[in-house]
C-alpha cells in the first residue's frame, strides 16, 4: 500500500556535545536538582507555594498534565503512520518518539518529587492497595506502561548503534503489538487526565467542568502532538542547520487544522448543551482566561485558512506555538484558574518551584540534543 514511499536512512548527527547551549541547559538542570534536595529535607512547602486550597501546583499541572501533552508527538505520528497508514510521515516518527520518550519519562519522574510519601509509590501497582475506581490509578498505571512501551518502541535506535541485529530482528516481529499499545495507552491516559477533574464537582468552574473532559483532553493531546512535531521540526532545522521538510509540515498542518475545527465544534457544542455558554460573558478572571484559551485555539484556523499560507514556515511555526499555548491554557485553566475550593486560597508558583519545572525542560532538551548527535534518529541529509 505504502510502497511508493522511500525513506532516507536515519543517521547520527554528530557534532560537539559541549556548546554554550548545552552548558546552559546543564546548569538549569543542576539548579533544579539542588532545589529538589531542599524539598526532600524540609518538605514540599519549603520550596513551593502549594497549599491546602491549591494542593496541586505546576509540578503536577505543568510537569505532568501539560508536559505529557507536549510529549504527544510520538503518539500522533504513530497514529498517522501506523494506523492511518500515512507512510510519507515515517521520517518524522523517530525524532517525535524521542521527544515523547523524554517528555513522558520526565513527567513520570517529576511526579515522584511531588508525591509526599514517594516511598510508597509502588502501592499503585500492588493488588490489595490498588484502587481501580480511582481515575488517578488509571492515569498512573497507563502512563507507566506507556513509558515502558516507548522505550521498547525506541530501542531499535540503540540496537542499531550497538549492532545487536538479532535482537532487533526479533523485536521487529512483535513491533506491531508494541505500536498498537503505543497508540492505545496515550488515548487512555491523556483522556483520563481530563477525567481526573470530574470528581472535583462544583469546585471546577462550569466553563471547564463537564463529562466531556476526557474527549476534550484527548483531542487537544492529539492536536498538541501535531503542533509539537511542527514546532520541533522548525526549531531543529534552524538549530542544527538542516533543511526544513516543508512539504510534510504543510500536509501535517492541513490535518491539524481539520481536527482543530472539529475540536472547536465539540467544545462550544458541549458548552451549549450544558447551557454554560453564558459564563464566558461573566466578568472575572475565569471568563477572561476562557477567551484567551479559545482565541489561541482559533488562531491557527485563521493563520492557516489560506492553503498558500501553509507553505509559509513562519506561519506554521506561529500556528503550532499558538496551539501549544492553547492546550497549555486549557489544562492550566481547568486545574488552577477554574478551580475554587473555598474563599481565601491563593496560588502562584514560587521562583524555586518554577526553576524546577524549567530545569526539567532543560534536561529534556539537553537529552534530545545529546541523543540525536549520538544515535540514528534524524534522516540523513541528502546532498544535492
Amino acid at each position, binding site marked *: *500500500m505504502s510502497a511508493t514511499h522511500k525513506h532516507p536512512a536515519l543517521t547520527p548527527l554528530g557534532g560537539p556535545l559541549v556548546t554554550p547551549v548545552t552548558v546552559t541547559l546543564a546548569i538549569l538542570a543542576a539548579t533544579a536538582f539542588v532545589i529538589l534536595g531542599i524539598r526532600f529535607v524540609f518538605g514540599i512547602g519549603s520550596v513551593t507555594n502549594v497549599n491546602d486550597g491549591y494542593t496541586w501546583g505546576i509540578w503536577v499541572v505543568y510537569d505532568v498534565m501539560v508536559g505529557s501533552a507536549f510529549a504527544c508527538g510520538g503518539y500522533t505520528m504513530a497514529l498517522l503512520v501506523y494506523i492511518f497508514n500515512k507512510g510519507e510521515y515515517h521520517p518524522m516518527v523517530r525524532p517525535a518518539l524521542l521527544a515523547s520518550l523524554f517528555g513522558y519519562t520526565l513527567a513520570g519522574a517529576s511526579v515522584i518529587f511531588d508525591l509526599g510519601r514517594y516511598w510508597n509509590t509502588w502501592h499503585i501497582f500492588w493488588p490489595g492497595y490498588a484502587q481501580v475506581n480511582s481515575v488517578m490509578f488509571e492515569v498512573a498505571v497507563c502512563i507507566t506502561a506507556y513509558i515502558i512501551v516507548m522505550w521498547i518502541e525506541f530501542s531499535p535506535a540503540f540496537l542499531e548503534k550497538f549492532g545487536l541485529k538479532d535482537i532487533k530482528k526479533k523485536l521487529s516481529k512483535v513491533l*506491531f503489538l508494541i505500536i498498537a499499545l503505543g497508540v492505545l495507552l496515550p488515548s487512555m491516559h491523556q483522556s483520563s487526565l481530563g477525567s481526573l477533574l470530574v470528581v472535583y*464537582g462544583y469546585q471546577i468552574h462550569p466553563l471547564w467542568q463537564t463529562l466531556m473532559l476526557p474527549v476534550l483532553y484527548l483531542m487537544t493531546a492529539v492536536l498538541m502532538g501535531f503542533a509539537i512535531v511542527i514546532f520541533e521540526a522548525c526549531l531543529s532545522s534552524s538549530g542544527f542547520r538542516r533543511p526544513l521538510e516543508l512539504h510534510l509540515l504543510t500536509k501535517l498542518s492541513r490535518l491539524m487544522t481539520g481536527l482543530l475545527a472539529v475540536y472547536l465544534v465539540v467544545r462550544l457544542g458541549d458548552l451549549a448543551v450544558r447551557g454554560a455558554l453564558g459564563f464566558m460573558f461573566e466578568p472575572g478572571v475565569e471568563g477572561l482566561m476562557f477567551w484567551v484559551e479559545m482565541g489561541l485555539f482559533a488562531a491557527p484556523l485563521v493563520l492557516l485558512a489560506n492553503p498558500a499560507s501553509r507553505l509559509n514556515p513562519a506561519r506554521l511555526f506561529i500556528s503550532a506555538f499558538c496551539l501549544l499555548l492553547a492546550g497549555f491554557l486549557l489544562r492550566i485553566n481547568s486545574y488552577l484558574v477554574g478551580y475554587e475550593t473555598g474563599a481565601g486560597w491563593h496560588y502562584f508558583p514560587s521562583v524555586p518551584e518554577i526553576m524546577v519545572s524549567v530545569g526539567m525542560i532543560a534536561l529534556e532538551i539537553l537529552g534530545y540534543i545529546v541523543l540525536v548527535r549520538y544515535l540514528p534518529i534524524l534522516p540523513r541529509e541528502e546532498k544535492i
Partner: protein
Amino acid sequence: MKRRDFLKGALAGGALLASGSPAQARPNKTMPPEAVGLLYDSTLCIGCKACVAACKEANGMPPEFSTAEQYWDTPLDISGKTLNVIKMYKAGSGEIKDSEKNGYAFMKVSCLHCVDPSCVSACPVSAMTKDPVNGIVSYDKGACIGCRYCVAACPFGVPRFQYDRPFPQITKCQLCVHRMKEGKYAACAEVCPTGSTLFGKVSDLHAEAKRRLALKPGEDTEFPRGNLNTHDQSSFPAKAAKYLPQIYGDKEVGGTQMLKLSAVPFEKLGMPTLPERSYAATSETMQHTLYGGLVLPLVFLGGLTYIAKRNVKDDDENE
C-alpha cells in the same frame, strides 16, 4: 481502506458495549447499617472551642499559633496540625446570636464522613477507606503515597496535608475511631458543654434533628449531650432557636454522617450548596463506562493491533 478497518474496529467496540454492556450508572452508595456520626447544632454552640482543645489532645496533634505571643493553640482553620475548628460568622454590628443580619453564628469544621466519599473514590491506593459497618472514613498513612488527590477532590476541603515535613501525612478527623476500642466516643462531643456537638447513631441523630426542627422557636426543651445512645451525660435545658428548615448533610452529595442544624443559611457559614448525586458516583460511572471489564480498551487494542500489523508489514516490504 485502512481507515475503514479502523472504523470497523471502533463500531465493533461500540456494538459490544451496547449489548453486553458492563457500564451501568453507578448509584450513590447507601448509609452503612450501624453508621455513627455527629449532630452539630450551630444555635447551641457558644464558641468555647473546648472541642478544638479536646480534639488536639485525643489525636496527639501539635498546637498551631496565629498570634504573635504564641501562648496557646489558636488555629484559624483545619490544617496538617488541626482536625477540628469552630469558625465564626459575623455580619453588621455582630450583636445578635444566630441572626444573618447584625449577628453572629458558629460553624464546626471537620470531616463530614460522607456516605459516598469523594476522597475514597479518588485515592489510588486505598489509603482512604470507609468502614462498611460504622461508616467512618479513615486514613492509613502506611498505604498513602501523598498524591493529595483527596485534598483536591473533597467538596468540603477536609483532608489536609503537612507541607512543612519531609515525611508528611494527610490529616483528617477519623471520628476518634481509636477511642472507640476503649469504649469511648468522639472527644469533641464528649466535652461539648451544651450538646451542640452530639455523638450517636446517624438514624437517631436524624430523628433528634427532626424533633428540633419541629419545635416552636422559643419553646423550652432539653438537648441531649455527649452520646445520644448511651445518655452518659445529663441533658442541657434551653429554648429552641429559629431553625432553618434544613438538615445539612441529609441529602448533600448523597448524605453525610455529620448532620448540621443552623439558623443562618449554611452558605454563609462556609458550607457549600451541593447536589444529591455524589461526585464519586458521577466519576465512577464515567470510569466504568470507559474501562468496565476492560472491554473497550481490549476491543480497541485488537483493532489497532490488526491495523498496525498490516501497515508495519507494508513497511518491511519497502525496506
